[in-house]
């Protein structure tokens, strides 16, 4: 059986520009009822129907898990992306009907932690908005360190400071402020867990320093928000369904497979959950792996691909789909 997430019919109840790059979207249930309860760190997949095109992108829920009258997400405009964020910013209006998935949490708090140490970079702040709301309500011990480019782009920094005071520290790139990572990692009480959400470089940096300073891997949690990147178009043969498909520049391989009427299971659409893992039957070309699921060995083998984020360049690719 498939383990994909169930879906929810929602209405866009509000669209709020937050700053030059980020806009917040509020969703309410179309039937007027309460949305499902969720846990801090969960995301939903938002289905964007843009004429003939369907894009399905994951966004972290940032609203308080204690309030299920609405869900909110924040979308950063990515002018070089595949157009999902531009669609959200440019076309989605209050009153629109949309379909989102049930919440799925792949970035869960470890509730055994004596303290939660959170590191956010840029739009990676969104899951921490929900997690801090959840922890604050339970009297949980947390500390949030948030790195932003400029004060003007410090999304929700003011709200977080107002809500949690000195438990939140902001670092501005344009003022040459940096998260004092080694000092933080060296001065935590036993039983502290580390959470990182931000650009890949920040995650790699924090994981490497934590490992070097003796943090057990089980206490380090991170979420990559690797949206699929656009790329050179390519053709793929789906052996089981007997179809040949074309993956357009702005389309992910998974979306192209779905557009052909084949529905692989998925949860994250961001290269981390493993659900859409697909066997390669044959290939003549180069894989452009962008996932965090397959091992380096798998990547080198040419036998597997994660179609949600990875692409291909070459003469032919035949997949077991």
């Amino acid at each position, binding site marked *: *059986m498939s*383990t*994909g*997430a*169930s879906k929810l019919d929602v209405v866009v109840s509000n669209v709020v520009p937050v700053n030059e790059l980020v806009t917040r979207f509020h969703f309410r249930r179309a039937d007027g009822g309460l949305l*499902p*309860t*969720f*846990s801090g*760190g*969960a995301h939903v997949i938002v289905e964007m129907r843009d004429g003939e095109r369907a894009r399905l992108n994951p966004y972290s829920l940032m609203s308080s*898990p204690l309030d299920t009258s609405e869900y909110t997400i924040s979308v950063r405009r990515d002018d070089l992306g595949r157009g999902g964020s531009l669609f959200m910013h440019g076309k989605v209006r209050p009153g629109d009907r949309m379909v989102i998935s*049930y*919440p*799925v*949490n792949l970035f*869960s*708090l*470890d*509730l*055994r932690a004596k303290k939660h140490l959170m590191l956010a970079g840029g739009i990676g702040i969104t899951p921490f908005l929900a997690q801090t709301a*959840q922890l604050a309500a*339970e009297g949980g011990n947390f500390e949030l360190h948030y790195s932003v480019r400029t004060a003007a782009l410090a999304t929700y920094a003011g709200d977080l400071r107002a809500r949690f005071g000195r438990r939140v520290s902001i670092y501005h790139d344009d003022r040459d402020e940096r998260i004092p990572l080694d000092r933080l990692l060296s001065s935590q009480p036993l039983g502290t867990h580390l959470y990182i959400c931000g650009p890949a470089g920040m995650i790699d940096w924090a994981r490497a320093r934590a490992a070097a300073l003796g943090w057990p891997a*089980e206490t380090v949690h991170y979420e990559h928000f690797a949206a699929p990147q656009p790329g050179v178009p390519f053709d793929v043969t789906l052996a089981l369904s007997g179809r040949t498909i074309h993956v357009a520049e702005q389309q992910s391989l998974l979306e192209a497979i779905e557009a052909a009427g084949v529905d692989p299971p998925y*949860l994250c659409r961001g290269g981390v*959950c493993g*659900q859409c893992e697909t066997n390669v039957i044959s290939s003549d070309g180069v894989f452009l792996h962008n996932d965090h699921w397959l091992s380096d060995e798998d990547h080198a083998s040419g036998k597997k691909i994660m179609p949600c984020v990875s692409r291909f360049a070459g003469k032919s690719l035949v997949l077991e789909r």
Partner: protein
Amino acid sequence: MGINFRTETFRDDFSFRNSPEHIRRFPFPFHEDSYMYAVNIEPHVAGPAGSVLEHPIDVDEHYVSEMADRALVLAEDPLRCQSLPHMTLAGWDLLELLMTAKAESYPEHFSLTRDGDRWHWINRPLGIDQKFLFGDLTTLPYGPMEYITRQSQGDFCILDQRDGNLWMDAGIVTTQADWSLDFDIGMNFFEWHAPVPLAHEKGIFTRALKFLTNVQQGKPARRLNWTMTINPRLDTSPENYHKWGPDRATVTPENVGQKVHLRVELQSFWRLPRSNALVFPIRCYLIKMDELVTSPKWARRLHRVIRDLPEELATYKGLTRYRATLVEWLARYDDGTPTSPGFGPE
């Protein structure tokens, strides 16, 4: 139409029995004439009206008496109910799941009124009327998991999910087939399944864990498991082995029909929303051989399954001592005619 709750016992005089309607709805676990482990997991969606799968959480005629038996077990041995400190939130999740499911499926017996965090729960069969604040431990007589599972048939394990594994970090276990929560508490999925024969070699636990860690909110799953029990005893725990183990030597050709019970577990798996933990209810259904053979198909099939069961499985399920007697008794109900596919009585 309400449920007609029976007054009966699962110990001492063993007055437990199934009404004719309950025999027909018994979750017979064999869809063919032989049995081997498989990852037999399917979506936990509504089944036919009247079946144990009609509602997401089944309540049946044994409810009131099973809850009385659970209270007796807990009074003797409080360690049957344990929750590690980080699992309290999951306990509230479970309380919400069970209260809402029961109130929705059985409005004549249960009701739940919610006004924000102010909840009002009425359980008519057990005579409970409780107002409390959701999330406030001081407003209930027990922790949330213990409170609601003292009012819910079946055992409950709450599994914390972290590091790509599941951890047995809370539960209430009083109707178990010879395993111990007190022994397993804090163990991970591979550790607590270590004693099961054959399945490891088949890679079943690795695949099952991969499936379970991906169970999503709103999409519960289920499977059936089975064993056999002598006398309709719910509490066949290792802690009380001295009470029930010797029963296995008491089976004779004359008493098979009354003493030997097929014990089926309906196991389901649910993602809990606030804690992201997984709850694993294990609901036990018992049926006497005399009751089971009222379905000729079930009788023929059970005879073939028990007769042909691999030795390791028979040993693991504790059947060795009385297997020959049981097979001989069941053979009388097997004329060799084919059985139809599927689980139903005919």
